[in-house]
């Protein structure tokens, strides 16, 4: 299972990075969303995989009766998902505002902070 997941994680990364490398702001934002999934799967896999047994203690027991899926990476991923979602939302709205204000979805044209063809600073004293 870990092998298949490692392979899947690799594909997730390839796709997300490929999208993030584009100049299209929305594609980049979508890439960010996929990146978060890639990372979550990565953490999940790194914590090793046990199928189908959730880490929930049965009503009648005080500890799990069988080997369960590793709960810690799940908790970590939950935190990471929430954080990633917050960032995703922010980025998306930022992209939206940037598009609205700057009038372009091409990051090559978003160059106000570091404008093209800037002049030299004063050469005198």
């Amino acid at each position: 299972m870990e092998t298949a997941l490692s392979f899947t994680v690799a594909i997730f990364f390839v796709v997300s990075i490929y999208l993030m490398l584009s100049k299209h702001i929305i594609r980049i934002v979508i890439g960010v969303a996929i990146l978060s999934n890639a990372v979550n799967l990565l953490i999940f896999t790194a914590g090793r995989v046990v199928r189908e047994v959730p880490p929930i203690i049965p009503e009648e027991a005080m500890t799990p009766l069988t080997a369960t899926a590793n709960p810690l990476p799940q908790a970590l991923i939950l935190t990471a998902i929430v954080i990633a979602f917050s960032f995703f939302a922010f980025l998306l709205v930022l992209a939206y505002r940037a598009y609205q204000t700057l009038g372009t979805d091409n990051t090559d044209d978003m160059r106000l902070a570091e404008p093209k063809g800037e002049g030299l600073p004063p050469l005198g004293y």
Partner: protein
Amino acid sequence: MRTLILRTVAPYLTSLMVLFSIFVLLRGHNEPGGGFIGGLIAASAFAIYGIACGVQAVRRAIRFHPMAISGAGLLLAALAGVFSLPFGVPFLTGLWLDGDPFGFSIILSTPLFFDIGVYLVVVGSITSIALALEERESL
């Protein structure tokens, strides 16, 4: 959105979803769920309500500014952590009051208040985002 059908169904759906979200919140300690998921469900409910009946309806419905709710959530969660201060135990130590007040096992405890804080933060923030976006739409 101008559709009678959605506008009619949405309030009921919303209240059902809010109810469900609280259920998920309270059960989180023992079954899948918890403050975050509960909060997301409630926020989804308000989003539907907002799309169907307009942002102002939601704002009136929740009375407080969503971000204020969010702030209250963070405050509650942090205070749940600080609550352990007089007991000579570290920050965020769980403290329980045993009991079974509602027939199913909710135990009053600092982790519960912490989780409620999480719930409020998520409801507040996500609702705020959805409403702000929706409001902008309907300009």
